[in-house]
């Protein structure tokens, strides 16, 4: 394989990995702290994309300088993250901590369906398009292949959010509190930690990651109800490969899936879809907890 093709594969892989990581990292973070597999994550991703698109179109039509559209994307995502995160955690999830996993899955799946319909009610069923932020930054060439510079922005946003989360968990007092709550909730309560607040904050971080993912993907796609399904399913494959609840696992899982897909497209196009699930099956067969997942002790 020549260097040019290898560079292209790496770049395509990184591009897709960035998209997947933005979604998977929130999913895995929420599971790590709350021990809840949040199926509604995909709907928050969709809401982020809708809000960002709608807000950007609105403000661009009102004469907003196009370069400010990136801040508008971020603002749209933050609005969605701050609304959905606390409200879902406080109103719904709080009632089912410690419940059977089936209840958790059913509840978060119900939230997904409700939010999906809410999107249709608010923005209708016809797709929305907005591409100014995508085209604005121009292009560059790798191995003779042209890429939009927006790809860098996507990778940058994704990596920054990952680094931010790692810093938040490992380098701040909040992170120490989160870790203590993960280790032992009852002792944490006894030590005076506001566990409820930690849960709300952690879930909101997860919601923010999904919304930011949606908002920054939006300029590259047509935003329509149900558009999130494909990439969200893929992000579940990512966390299964990396290990649920592990930030490094999400990063590695995203890279593996992104690169494997790019490799397949360029070398054996027929295997584009199969290769990702093949990797997942292999990982789960030999390491059911995922590459970075810790083996859980049997309680009894």
């Amino acid at each position: 394989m020549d260097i040019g093709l290898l560079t292209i594969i790496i770049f395509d892989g990184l591009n897709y990995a960035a998209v997947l990581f933005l979604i998977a990292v929130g999913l895995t973070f929420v599971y790590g702290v709350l021990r809840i597999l949040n199926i509604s994550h995909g709907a928050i991703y969709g809401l982020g994309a809708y809000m960002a698109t709608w807000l950007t179109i609105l403000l661009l039509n009102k004469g907003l300088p196009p370069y400010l559209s990136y801040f508008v994307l971020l603002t749209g995502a933050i609005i969605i993250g701050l609304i959905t995160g606390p409200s879902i955690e406080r109103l719904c999830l709080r009632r089912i901590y410690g419940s059977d996993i089936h209840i958790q899955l059913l509840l978060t799946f119900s939230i997904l369906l409700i939010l999906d319909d809410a999107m249709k009610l608010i923005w209708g069923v016809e797709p929305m398009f907005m591409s100014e932020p995508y085209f604005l930054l121009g292009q560059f060439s790798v191995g003779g292949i042209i890429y939009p510079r927006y790809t860098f922005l996507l990778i940058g946003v994704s990596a920054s959010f990952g680094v931010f989360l790692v810093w938040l968990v490992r380098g701040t007092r909040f992170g120490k509190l989160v870790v203590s709550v993960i280790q032992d909730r009852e002792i944490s309560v006894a030590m005076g930690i506001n566990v409820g607040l930690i849960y709300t904050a952690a879930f909101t971080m997860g919601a923010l990651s999904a919304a930011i993912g949606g908002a920054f993907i939006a300029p590259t796609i047509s935003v329509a109800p149900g558009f999130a399904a494909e990439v969200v399913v893929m992000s579940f494959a990512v966390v299964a490969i990396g290990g649920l609840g592990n930030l490094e696992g999400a990063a590695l899982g995203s890279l593996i899936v992104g690169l494997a897909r790019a490799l397949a497209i360029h070398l054996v196009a027929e295997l584009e879809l199969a290769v990702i699930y093949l990797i997942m099956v292999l990982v789960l067969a030999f390491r059911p907890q995922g590459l970075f997942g810790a083996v859980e002790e049997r309680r009894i």
Partner: protein
Amino acid sequence: MPKINLLPGLFLSILAVGTWLGAMVLPVNAAPPGAPAELKVAFVDFLSGPAAIFGTSGRYATEWLVDKWNKEGGIKGVPLKLVILDEAGTPAKNVTEFRRLVMEEKVNVVLGFTSSANALAIAPVAEELKTLTLIHVAGTNRLTEDHKLHYTFRTSNHQAADSVLLARYVLKLKPNLKSIAGANEDYAWGRDSWEAFMGAIKTLQPGVEVKAELWTKIQAGEYSAEISKLLAARADVVHSSFWGGGLVTFIKQALPRGLFKQSLVALSTGAQVDQFVGKDMPDGVVLCPRATGAYFLDPEPEKDPLQKEFVEGYHKKVGRYPDYVSYRGYQAIGGMKAAYEKAIAQTGRWPTTEEVIKAFKGLTWRVPGGDIHMRAEDHQAIHDGLVGITKMSKKYGFALMEKRERFPGEQIMPPVGMKTPDWVKTLKK
């Protein structure tokens, strides 16, 4: 003086006056004997999800026509009642909904289905439930080539027409074509479209090299690696049967990367999204309204009253110009109405489903853009197909399909009894 019996004369006079009065009072469209209070027609198409830009177009056209016809007296005095349903979901879900429509909602006719996977799943159930079912958009040739259909009809050309039409057109634009590449979705529609396009090109221009064949999930939404591969392949022509929101995303992602400058890109459903893509659609892209015989500017509305009425009425209702899905919606429900009317004329009463089917076989009916002919043997409609190349229009604010060419149905559709893969091998320039 003989006694004159006035009674017969009186009786005849009363009868004559009565008939005359009856003719004056009763509407012209008096329902034929045995007519139901209404004809219940289900319309099933994507109303949510990335394919909604398809479904809503077909729905608007169908609603517009039903409103218009009901104001004019329906079908011989019987009003039509539409039951609208979302096609989004799996084939299994659509089969369940189809059964519910027939058995619980008691619809008389089911019309619709954009997804080939759904159409293939529905046809056997339509046969089992003995329900007249008209497939309006779904393109896989397998529907009418691999199945013996009785209750199911497809009221438009299948994908072979799109692919062969595109092949003939790109060879006109690039007579020295050396290489092709394809990016299509990994299911019946995408696979069949590419096979037919590639087969037609190879037959019409032997020696053409295939540089890349890419397969994505339906409405994948992320095509960066595929676009890189297409750019690296540097093929003269890139073919894609992507559709709906997925196609818009592909165009958006490919545009800044120069794919449209490097290769002649041919999009079999492209004419459907040009109004949505707006100013982002580049010039010089081959667009095909899926081998449909009408485009909102062709035939010219001023020269075709049916076209003028539809384009103006649709634009007033929707705020957009009709696209090929709208025209195919028109073809389907227009065909249904024509078949019922023919069956009524043949029987002198409201027809049974079997009588409508008999009338549908070999029927030719008029729509904006020309005649549609339903082949009796395989229940496959055949009609003209249009193709053209994009040119941005300041007047409309989106790219128009210019340099249009109209191909007769016989040139772009396989004859009865011949399967598409075999037929494309027999094509002649």
